[in-house]
């Protein structure tokens, strides 16, 4: 007599046939689980994002027009002489053009002169910057003459913090700093946007310092490798109007943990 033939009753799924009854509830659960997992992951990933801070374009302030004196560091600064309700005389504004470009070429012929600047303010806490309009209406010569205030040396400092592009940091992007934003920051800096060092400890009351090369030139190439990283460095700090400027010594850069 032949032995009985084995039976394998495991349900067998064929895509173009009806799903075997035994598998139906399993597959239904699997399908619902995929939807549930994805939705839950969406919730967790979305809801765990960090606060990007309060930096922003202040379109709500309206267009700001002020008069002041240009100082080239070489990133142009505007020392305000005649301000308005929001921007007081004596304030020092960093300047930027639209997008990822600075205003060096437009400010250079106006160095040391009185100008009228007009545009939108970017603001993050005590840090602000003026994005000037295009053409002479954004940055043009004004009547009268003036001179930038005499800078005041504050000595050599060792600081810990992050090199950022001043514009994204001030609110052109939220978040506008950090490693994920590094390439964007580099691109801004290559476009002559003023670099800003965010210090963990305030220097003479300010945690934001415009940062330059050791000789006072633009941000040195070597510094680009450290943009957006937590580093320590040394340099000479001076006050230009009410803005602090750090002339960094690239040889002292150390990556912090």
């Amino acid at each position, binding site marked *: 007599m032949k032995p009985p033939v084995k039976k394998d009753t495991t349900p067998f799924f064929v895509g173009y046939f009806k799903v075997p009854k035994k598998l139906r509830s399993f597959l239904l659960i699997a399908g619902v689980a995929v939807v549930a997992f994805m939705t839950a992951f969406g919730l967790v990933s979305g809801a765990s994002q960090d606060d990007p801070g309060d930096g922003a374009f202040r379109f709500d302030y309206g267009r700001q027009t002020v008069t002041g004196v240009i100082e080239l560091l070489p990133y142009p600064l505007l020392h305000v002489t005649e301000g308005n309700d929001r921007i007081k005389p004596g304030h020092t504004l960093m300047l930027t053009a639209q997008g990822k470009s600075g205003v060096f070429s437009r400010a250079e012929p106006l160095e040391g002169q009185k100008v009228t600047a007009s545009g939108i303010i970017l603001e993050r806490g005590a840090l602000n910057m003026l994005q000037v309009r295009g053409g002479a209406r954004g940055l043009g010569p004004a009547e009268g003459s003036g001179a930038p205030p005499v800078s005041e040396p504050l000595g050599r400092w060792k600081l810990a913090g992050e090199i950022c592009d001043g514009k994204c940091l001030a609110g052109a992007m939220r978040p506008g700093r950090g490693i*994920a934003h590094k390439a964007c920051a580099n691109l801004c800096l290559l476009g002559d946007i003023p670099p800003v060092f965010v210090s963990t400890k305030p220097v003479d009351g300010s945690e934001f310092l415009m940062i330059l090369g050791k000789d006072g030139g633009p941000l040195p190439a070597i510094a680009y490798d450290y943009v957006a990283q937590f580093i320590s460095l040394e340099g000479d700090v001076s006050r230009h109007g009410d803005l602090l400027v750090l002339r960094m010594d690239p040889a002292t850069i150390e990556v912090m943990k």
Partner: protein
Amino acid sequence: MSVKYIPVQWNKNKWWYDGFMLAGVVGFLWVFLYVTPEILSHERPINPQIHNARAFGACAFFMMTIILCIGPLARLDKRFLPLLYNRRHFGVMTAAVALTHFSYVLNWYFAFSGTNKYEALLFSNTSYGQLVGFPFEAFGIFALLCLLILAATSHDFWLKFLTAPVWKRIHYLIYFAYAAVVAHVSLGVLQDQQNHLFTVVFVASAFTVAGLHLLAFLHERKAGDPDAVPDTDGWVQVCHAKDIPEARAKIAVLPSGDRVAVFRLEDKLSAVSNACAHQNGPLGEGKVIRCLITCPWHGFQYDIRSGRSPAPFTEKIPTYNLAVRDGVVLVNPKANPPGTYVEPVEV
């Protein structure tokens, strides 16, 4: 199976499959894009472009995670096999979601400058010599290219054109893509996190993928296909005939490393190559339905006697000559050319 190439041969199960997967993607994106901003209630919201980029990027990561879990799950528990059936549609969806992530990033972080966006993407950060601050975008670009290649070649036309082994090898790119995405995220957004919840879920997902593959590997080593035992005249013993269930098969590894599947249909046995002509699916884990061996992966069918797909289909697999001696199934390990008729052997 393929007769002529039409974009997708739809059936009800595919609709269901895509429906669930699409619902998962929509669920993820909808919650991330529209619900979480309310929950976060930041004083000033994250830029919409960045928020969108993150949503699509994270979504693509979790989609890849699911795709890569399906394989080992199906190896550990056959009930997951249907999830493999239409996985390529989910893969194409993943490529589309990843591409959306890319375009948000490109048109935000790398726009608004005098430099061409693509050049800016490649050359803004060149700190390749360091880990922190490494241009993690490079890993993202690599992963996206892989996904696009996989999506573009996902159709059966390419499978046939490239042949199954080559196609399969290309599609192993998904593992490199996943590794690249893990690096992309780890060296990018994870570096900035203050809230570590996402990091935890991210790491857990990556470990799940790795862990399931390890489990499946160990499972297969323990419960894998047995080696065929050498017999006289160069033939090999595969199994006992009585161990082969009706309409199913037993698989054995031949000395060459190829696998043979011996099927039983009404007291007669037939031996064919275990590798499906479609994507090398394990035919021996399939079932005989109306005289046709049916692949467990996508349902390609082959005549049990000749290894030929029924007309109008043209796929063919090799067959093997076999014999039964004292209840033991013997197979000649030299495969017959694909499609060779072999008379089934009475048990």
